[in-house]
């Protein structure tokens, strides 16, 4: 789809991980309880969104951006559906005249290719500090296709990603004039999608690396 693949440091600074993403001091997401800090300034990145800011700032000519960034991320949580280390993929498109309709169309194709030809999407308004408007995106249930089952808790939908139009503050802080440029961003947890797609019940299985598990995924 014409996206460049970007990468960024996993040992990230507060500035790229939070500040430039409109998460000011005092925002609950910056609490010690959620992040692995190394010093006051350095932490293990909590989201691949940090690469958004890096990509925008590095692009001095302000040429259009269409990038995707897969990578490891870290948060202070560990249970069957959360792992203190997990993998995200972040997408970012910036240009003149980028709209929510573009985001919708892009994610619809993404869902068809990654999740299944017949998958449908539902956009639910939500809140992320770095996008405005923000949406959580549900995909029709992997198991029942939307009729309702135990996997989707009878709703027919499974939440798979967060997305939205890049917040004007983020654009401004990263060197773009929000009156001229707009953009969309989306981020998703890859383990979560793998778990639903292959029916893996516990995220920890992905990190146990049993060769009998690994050799099942040789395609």
């Amino acid at each position: 789809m014409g996206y460049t693949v970007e990468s960024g440091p996993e040992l990230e600074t507060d500035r790229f991980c939070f500040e430039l993403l409109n998460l000011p001091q005092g925002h609950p997401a910056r609490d010690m309880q959620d992040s692995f800090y190394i010093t006051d300034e350095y932490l293990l990145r909590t989201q691949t969104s940090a690469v958004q800011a890096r990509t925008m700032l590095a692009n001095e000519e302000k040429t259009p951006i269409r990038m995707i960034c897969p990578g490891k991320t870290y948060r202070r949580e560990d249970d069957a559906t959360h792992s203190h280390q997990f993998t995200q993929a972040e997408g970012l498109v910036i240009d003149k005249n980028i709209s929510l309709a573009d985001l919708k169309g892009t994610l619809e194709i993404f869902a068809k290719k990654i999740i299944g030809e017949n998958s449908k999407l539902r956009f639910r308004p939500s809140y992320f500090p770095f996008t405005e408007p923000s949406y959580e995106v549900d995909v029709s249930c992997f198991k029942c296709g939307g009729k309702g089952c135990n996997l989707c808790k009878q709703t027919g939908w499974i939440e798979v990603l967060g997305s939205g139009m890049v917040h004007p503050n983020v654009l401004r802080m990263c060197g773009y004039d929000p009156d001229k440029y707009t953009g969309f961003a989306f981020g998703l947890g890859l383990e979560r999608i793998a778990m639903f797609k292959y029916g893996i019940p516990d995220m920890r299985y992905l990190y146990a690396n049993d060769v009998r598990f690994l050799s099942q995924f040789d395609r």
Partner: protein
Amino acid sequence: MKLSKNFVKDYVDVDVDIKTLAEDMTNVGNEYDEAGKLVDATKLVVGEVLTCDMHPDSDHLHVCKVDVGKEVLNIVCGAPNVAKGQKVIVALDGAELPGGVKIKKGQIRGQESNGMICSLSEIGIESKFQSEEDKTGIHVLPSDAKLGEDAVKAMGLDDEIIDFDLTANRGDLLSILGMAYEIGAIYDKKVKDIDLSHKENGEDINKTFSLDINTDNCKLFLAKRALNVEIKESPDFIKNRLLASGIRPINNVVDISNYVMLETGQPLHFYDADRLKGKIEVRMAKENEKLTTLDGIERNLSKDDIVISDGTRPIGLAGVMGGLDTEIEATTKNVIIEAAIFDGVKVRLTSKKIVRSEASNRFEKGLDPNRTYMAAERACTLLEKYANAEISKGTVIYDKTEKEDKEIDVTLENINSLLGSNIKLEEAVDIFERLGFKTKSRGNLIKVKVPRRRLDIDIKEDLIEEVGRIYGVNNIEGKLPVVPTVPGNYDRNIRNIRNKMIALGLNETLSYILLNDKEVNNFTTDKFEPVKLLDPMSEDRNTARYTMITSLFKIYEYNADRGNKDVSIFEIGKGFYKHGEEYGEDLKLCVLMSGEFYTGINSKKEVDFYIIKGIIEELLDSLGYENRYSFVVPKEMSKDFHPGQTADIIVNGKKVGIIGLVHPEISENKVFVSEINLSNLLEIKTGKMKYKEISKFPSIKKDIALVVDKNIESLEIAKVIKKAGGSNLSNIEIFDVYEGKGIEKGKRSIAFSLTFSNSDKTLTDEEINPILEKIVDMTEKEFKAELRK
């Protein structure tokens, strides 16, 4: 936030069922966890116990005759408090109770039982909402309850609940009024006015009461006074609505403060006025200042906590919890009502140390100062009505807040270009009006007045989100962005390396980067400072790894413990370090091989040094480093490697990695590992691929086996062979290593396959034999090698 449907109906008409309401709220951005009846049970009626006798075959069961209106039922009941004359909740035959319990006619120890007399727990009321008596037995209804009537309705618990999981920016929805505005916007219904009417008499509170605000962390403080309150139980509707909202009823006065918080979103605090010294001061606490809070615990305060003081001592932790000795008790006569706005960040930090509460949550999310005034008045209204209070004249006011609507401009173009939609001006204006925002439009410009209750709306993009929310994003058609394509810059090498390793038959792993600090220096002699976490989740994972070998060795151990002997894996990941003040991270490839390895159709081989070396060579060749690398005995080596079977990987004279056998003291089974620092390797330029004339003349292969001391490196021998072979020797391969029977102890045999070729002529035995002799001579001289016969 638990929304009671009965409660919100006070302020907006809702005529859809609870599931529809929950789904419609979800579609405008308000997710929910559960939606349904408060008491999820059927066939519960009011009954009267006509007789109650001991069961003939039991020391605790009772046999009762219960009148349920239409009939009299025989019911066996085990509750200790059941008695003749009580009005009770009866689950009839066929009733379904929470937790999947079904009531059926039957016999209990030979006595007919045609239903069940219920406790509150049995109908799904959590025990924290129950009186002590209710916790130990059946629930007794008031004597005026009508026989045969729906018992849930008789208790006023015929309510429906949605448990919302709200986003952090919508603090306004932590109130019934806020919910009413949201529901009103969805269904185009007006929000009804709240009743603030009450009488005020006597001396103005300002005459005898003083307020002193000595911190910027309190922007608004209101105090009112209610005299001669009568403390008693709350009326049923207040108790039931608190219960439906998840708050435990206590007494009418305390309940009113919670009720008003639920209605308006503004937390209130009530003080026993007679225990204050006629003054309230708000300030930051002194370091180590003490306060015993409502829960009886003495708290040690810090200078980051906001405290309320009466001028002599702290009497409350602002926004978090009141003090014990000014709390409302059964004997309280006069009440000071506090309605204030404290700094959300400070309240959050304090509440994290003490307790997260309904109140602290609301301060954290932010409050509308207009609601603070409203809540103070509303509390007076309810105290007058339900606690017979006399409200004093006046309000003590300290106010540094802005209360006017926020004026924000947005154009129709702004809306449609950001949403990619085709919304008309009238539609956009209608959405704002439905949300309760006043608008004025000129041409395509809409001037919107946003009430302060919507703390989340500050810029035009926020307004566009509102339009998108109510219009429905799912009504906007998706398209693809038109953006020029630029060449990608991600290191293609990484993808090639991954594909190569998979093609060679290794499994890719994904391991945790966090290790115990004692493990970080395993398998390496590099000098670096480890990267340690300030606040790890556990000591097992308190440091970021430097080498990935430890991670992969752990994976090997995990598999070995489960009987998986054949483990050939690789991972591409990062290693972390600190040099001075600088943090760094390098991309690395780690390979681990043990047990048998698939080497072709129907062919498996026990992994040895040469197999893993072959894998690494194969990889380096494919990346373009052919003929530029060598494997050299390390000058310095980690004690975790086998000293005789370990080598540095050198490319263009620079060390890029290590390859070797894990020391037998660490693993009895042979485990070979290799790690290459890809950040360093990929900096080394490769030559361009160029065509080289293929020799028209055939090449000749000769095999020789040399017997040498066990500790002599085969790599060193190969070097000497190369030198002796000269330009006609085009390739050297080791194809067998043997020690044991037929070979002297302490020695081993290494077999080399040598390829000779020349681009100008066909080589003859006469030309090759002298070269072979030279090879044997030189290896004998260097290593005392003997040709194996």
